[in-house]
């Protein structure tokens, strides 16, 4: 913990043990991922005899075929549309509600807030059948909104809690001063609160995005048309079609998790902060 930690002697057996332990865990995590990436470069025959090592002959064709097919891009596009809709709507709806809870005192405010936080207590799956019927009766079945709107509803609880806490911590004098100067609540929200809250908006946006991008159950229940499938559904269909042609499936998996990994490497801090702060502060 301290930079000048005296326990960092070079030949301490405890250090060696620790390094060995970390190495074992790292291998446990890495091997399935690397085998998937490399497996996509092998032929099926080679995969059977050499699933671990580097390919003897690099089959770029597996990846190229997928990248050149319309299918892969269509899946990513659908996922992107659904996730973007979900994130945008969540940020708008949740920040408006959080602002009200943070700055406007009204009768029943704390009751309504606990009502919203009920959403943290149970998984979406519990009521997915009635939800399906509701979405069907609203005529939203088999549409992007049929997936996005329930996702927004389920992400509201956590988002409102995180945003409200942040809004509350902004200096209250700002609001007072603005109100004295004749600025309305709505304008204050648009021109002061939101610009000051970029970090928390990024955090909430990231959590929502990752959850929506990876979601499987809701799209599975709400969508029937292949052309609308997001990638988790698409990849299950692909796996069904190529059931044991593992080299193709592995290439497809690699390409579909690639955006997530790139996003993770680019926005590590937001993602880690977002996913753990949701937990710690929620």
């Amino acid at each position, binding site marked *: 913990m301290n930079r000048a930690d005296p326990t960092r002697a070079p030949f301490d057996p405890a250090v060696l043990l620790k390094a060995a332990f970390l190495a074992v865990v790292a291998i446990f995590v890495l091997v*399935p991922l690397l085998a998937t990436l490399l497996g996509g470069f092998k032929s099926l025959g080679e995969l059977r005899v050499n*699933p671990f090592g580097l390919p003897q002959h690099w089959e770029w064709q597996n990846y190229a075929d997928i990248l050149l097919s319309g299918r892969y891009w269509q899946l990513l596009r659908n996922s992107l549309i659904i996730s973007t809709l979900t994130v945008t709507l969540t940020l708008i709806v949740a920040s408006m509600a959080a602002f009200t809870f943070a700055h406007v005192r009204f009768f029943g405010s704390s009751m309504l807030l606990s009502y919203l936080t009920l959403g943290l207590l149970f998984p979406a799956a519990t009521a997915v059948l009635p939800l399906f019927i509701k979405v069907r009766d609203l005529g939203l079945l088999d549409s992007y909104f049929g997936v996005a709107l329930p996702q*927004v509803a389920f992400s509201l609880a956590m988002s409102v809690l995180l945003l409200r806490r942040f809004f509350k911590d902004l200096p209250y004098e700002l609001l007072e001063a603005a*109100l004295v100067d004749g600025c309305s609540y709505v304008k204050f929200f648009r021109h002061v609160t939101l610009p000051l809250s970029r970090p928390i908006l990024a955090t909430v946006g990231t959590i929502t995005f990752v959850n929506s991008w*990876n979601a499987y*159950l809701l799209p599975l229940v709400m969508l029937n048309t292949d052309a609308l499938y997001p990638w988790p559904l698409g990849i299950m269909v692909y796996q069904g079609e190529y059931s044991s042609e593992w080299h193709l499936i592995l290439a497809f998996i690699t390409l579909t998790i690639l955006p997530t990994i790139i996003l993770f490497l680019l926005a590590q801090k937001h993602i880690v902060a977002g*996913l753990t*702060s949701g937990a710690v502060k929620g």
Partner: protein
Amino acid sequence: MARQIASSSAIHVARPPLAAQASRGPSWDGRYTVLILFLPPALLLFTLFVVLPIGEAAWYSAFNWNGFGRPTNWIGLDNYRFVLETRAFWLALRNNGLIIAVSLCVQLPLALTLALMLSERFRGAVALRMLFFMPYILAEIATGLIFSFVYDGDYGLVASIWRSFGAEPPHLLASTDTAMLAVLIVIVWKYFGFHMMLFIAALQSIDKSLIEAARIDGATRTQSLRHVVIPLLYPTIRLSVFFAIIGSLQLFDLVMPLTRGGPADSSNTMVSFLYNNGISRMRVGYGSAIGVILFVICVTFAFTYKRWFMRDE
């Protein structure tokens, strides 16, 4: 959106009287505008897609209904009786129990140990943290598919290790004895990094002077760990347990690509049981009954746990 824009231009018109009132504290007009405009979208969406479906699940669960037309065939509590008489339901419940046990006995100690190691500064510590966290952000579906390759009896990694010892490779996911074990290993692989990060965040917020004080008082590293650091982590440990249990009750996506709950229901979780028996066959009443049972378990657990263990948070 259009409504929001329209009314914010209405506020421009209403500005002079607002400004006049402002000196007497927050104006009523401004507050009402916010209440009327800002709260309803969230409440509406939440009520429509989260709260109402739960209530409707309770209602539908009293019918034998395939989802078409209106429910008319009232059968009272029979659906609950059918669920409780199904062997697969109890298997699913047992499996959820197993997941919780593994989360508490394997995953949590592993995460805590790694957090203690990686919260110290040394070269590569941050890279290792990121590596261990990475499985958590991968989609469950992708993770499940990756491991269905790892476990594959013909092409998989496990099969290859078996063959190198000259043994006939097992089909782990196809046997009722090993399928659930295989799923449990994937669960640890995917989620330990999240719990590790929780612990690292908590460790970093510990006041270093407490550990320093213990050291000055002559405590060894192990002693200060046992009597200072771990007790300071109790709130985070309780939180981590909470997430492990709630997470296990929600587990579905991971199971589908691995086993779909099979073979012979041996690796179903509550949600995959609900999917296989209620949703995929559109048995709305029966599926809703499972949903209500799951809901009751989750809510009872959450309230009890919060009351007993997280009173101060």
